């Protein structure tokens, strides 16, 4: 499976993270998104006329939407991540998968503006990002009241992976995560999962390793 990838893209990271959690080995094809704008070049435009990355290629299957990639990776290698045990759970997964696009459009665009100087109305983007974070916080509070740690159930699903990257990187776009304790707990639960990998801007959870013993260098 081949992923056309940009290391700073949270959408590409969703696919890398899901693959790592599901134990799928990806063939990474780095794309010079910035500064080279290679995703707008002829080779990648032929593959994805929308001119976006990531692109996941497996045989003749070409996926250009990150949510579809998460579902595909989970279905192939880790079906428990699909979160479809009950009708309610399956619906919640779809609800948050759709919601994740609002995170991309708000927090993601704010981040591109603040970090890589892309055009945009930053006040509006940050405001929309804050609205989305409040909805996510409220959703997680309600899940917590139901005794469930993740978005769709007490187990992580593709919905959590779809929402996590843009939320974790909200401060890159000038949107603080300080007011959201439930998001903080959820984020730590995801970062503590077996097989979790980071991306630039999301630091290693050093808590998980014991302090080195002096003299053992």
């Amino acid at each position, binding site marked *: 499976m081949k992923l056309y990838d940009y290391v700073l893209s949270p959408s590409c990271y969703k696919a890398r993270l899901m693959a790592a959690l599901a134990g799928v080995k990806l063939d990474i094809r780095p794309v010079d998104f910035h500064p080279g704008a290679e995703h707008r070049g002829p080779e990648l435009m032929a593959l994805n006329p929308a001119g976006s990355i990531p692109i996941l290629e497996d045989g003749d299957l070409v996926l250009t939407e990150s949510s579809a990639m998460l579902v595909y990776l989970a279905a192939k290698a880790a079906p428990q991540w699909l979160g479809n045990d009950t009708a309610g759970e399956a619906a919640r997964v779809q609800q948050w998968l759709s919601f994740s696009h609002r995170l991309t459009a708000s927090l993601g665009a704010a981040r591109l503006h603040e970090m890589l100087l892309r055009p945009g109305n930053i006040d509006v983007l940050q405001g929309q990002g804050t609205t989305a974070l*409040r909805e996510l*916080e*409220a959703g997680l*509070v*309600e899940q917590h*009241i*139901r*005794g469930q740690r993740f978005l769709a159930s007490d187990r992580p699903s593709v919905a959590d992976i779809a929402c996590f990257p843009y939320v974790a990187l909200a401060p890159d776009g000038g949107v603080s995560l*300080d*007011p959201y*304790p*439930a998001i*903080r707990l959820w984020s730590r639960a995801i970062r503590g999962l077996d097989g979790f990998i980071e991306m630039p801007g999301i*630091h290693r*959870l*050093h*808590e998980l390793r*014991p*302090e080195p013993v*002096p003299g053992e*260098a």
Partner: protein
Amino acid sequence: MPAQSPAGPVALWRSRSGRAAAFADRCPHRGMRLSHGFVRGETLACIYHGWSYAKAGNCLRIPAHPALAPPDTIRVATLRVEDGGGIIWISVGEPAAGPPRFEGLAPLRSMVLEAGIVALEAAAGTKAAEGLLDYTHDDRAVWLLLAPEGQARTLMHVLVDEDSNPDERIAASRAAEALRGAAEDIARGGIAR
């Protein structure tokens, strides 16, 4: 986690054994916010260079100089912390009495609203007494414990009757969301006028 206090930003953390501590949110080495740091066992370490501190605020380890036992004088300022009925209290200075107890109530969630207490009181149609606002919504009581963060922002802790069932708790959370929206509308209108 980051928090606010009248003495400035605070790094609030809980050690592995469950003890809470509050530090000034600034590493004495090079000024990095300690609320970005990591907890290992009974210590909080700065994410930048890994300097780690005990709950009392004294520095225990400087990884760049592993042979050095840091003196007690290298320390971060601490605030007193009380863990009372699921609510963490910090105090600036030495208060005469412990924090208030809210018998029969259970904390539900904390939320920030971009409005002052006056706007919140207007939205709720009732006044806060000693920082606690008693708000009835759809015949259900919700208590809001308020901590102002300047004039235009308030941290609001939502408390419910400890016997509430999950449906009642979810309803209380939604009522608090709606109240926040109304208070922020009032605050925005106030600025517009």
